[in-house]
């Protein structure tokens, strides 16, 4: 019997080496894989490339989510749409300590999906003619300007779902899905943390949002902090 479950977050990320390219699901603090992020922080992995909509979130004077990884200088490069979400990113970037690849939010989601779906590249109107089109191939289709965007993959995807089974089938809740389903398709190894881990057959096959084929490892998150911005 196949069982993809791991005992702990740290156990599930043991082979993540320095220099890894990692996607993190979540939008703000909604649907972030907070246990896997904490485990990665504890493990001390360095020179990470982070792909995530935002580099953590700020609440008052404190920063949460991915922010501690940035603050600790573990991140070499950030690819995402909203780097100004934290003060720590801004400071590190101004000090020349972290690279930035800025991607429009929808293009980010679509590039990730493209990688997962075996698409070699695609044309969008988003950003055509703007600063974010620099270096990208332009093309006129039906009289409108498009730019070519390329798929975006990673060594690992850390995703969060509400419920999952030991085959890796995932179900999300509310706006907690966001980037998680696309990222689950786009990495060599996808590690999912869930609030409820159940046996196969406990999830209605029609309700599965990420089929288990996209998930290599799954675990029940140790602790779910609830933040409100």
């Amino acid at each position, binding site marked *: 019997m196949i069982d993809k479950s791991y005992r702990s977050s740290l156990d599930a990320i043991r082979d993540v080496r320095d220099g890894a390219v990692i996607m993190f699901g979540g939008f703000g603090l*909604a649907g972030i894989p907070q246990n896997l992020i904490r485990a990665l922080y504890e493990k001390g992995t360095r020179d990470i490339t982070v792909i995530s909509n935002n580099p953590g979130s700020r609440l008052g004077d404190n920063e949460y989510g991915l922010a501690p990884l940035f603050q600790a200088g573990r991140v070499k490069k950030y690819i995402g749409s909203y780097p100004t979400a934290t003060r720590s990113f801004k400071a590190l970037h101004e000090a020349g300590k972290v690279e930035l690849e800025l991607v429009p*939010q*929808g293009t980010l989601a*679509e590039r990730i999906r493209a990688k997962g779906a075996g698409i070699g590249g695609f044309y969008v109107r*988003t950003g055509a003619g703007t600063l974010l089109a620099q270096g990208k191939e332009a093309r006129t289709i039906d009289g409108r300007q498009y730019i070519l965007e390329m798929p975006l993959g990673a060594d690992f995807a850390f995703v969060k779902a509400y419920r999952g089974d030991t085959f890796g089938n995932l179900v999300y809740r*509310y*706006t907690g899905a966001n980037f998680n389903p696309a990222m689950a398709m786009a990495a060599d190894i996808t590690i999912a943390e869930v609030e409820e881990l159940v046996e196969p057959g406990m999830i209605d096959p029609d309700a599965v949002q990420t089929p288990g084929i996209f998930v290599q490892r799954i675990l029940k998150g140790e602790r779910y902090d609830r933040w409100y911005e």
Partner: protein
Amino acid sequence: MTAGMNEKEMAQRAAAEIRDGSSVNLGIGMPTLVLDCIPPDRTVFFHTENGLLGMGGFAPQGSAHPDLVDAGKQPVTSIRGASFFPSDLSFAMLRGGHIDLAIMGAYQVSEKGDLANWTAPGMLPSVGGAMDIAAGVQRIIVLMSHTTKDGKPKIVRELSYPPTGFACVSLIITDLCVIEVTPAGLLLRELAAGVSAADVIKTTGAGLIVPEKP
């Protein structure tokens, strides 16, 4: 009494543009005020790009859930008949032209309807969904102060700020007036109480078409 509209009045004016049954994306900041301006007999599907169609309003104290937020990361509620979906499908809606209307803030709007609202020169840039919305939504209304804090025009002949999108703005609602972007140029459609056409012309950096009775 100060001349012109306050933010609440501007949001109300924007709400009047929203048809029954339409889908509307609200930018963060002032546009979210529009949420509370919809008459109860009108069904509006507010879209938030992080994955909800049918946003209700801000969640009352105690009923907030950290996984139910809007694009500004504020806890919200959902209406009867709402749906949740992932970011890729959410932006398919925006880019594919399925959202009827977006209401956004702006740094500048040009006389051709070019929009600058994602970053300013010298700033660390963030873009979020602004460019996707500018490229894909059927109709865009800009809700902004008529001038910058130091009195410079925000409605200009050519953008000096980095563009978000081109020829995408349909209507501009400011504290002073309502301006429609037409093929012929910027048309002054309405003046706020106590504001004259001359007041608007003086604070606008682009040509205006002023009808006899705006």
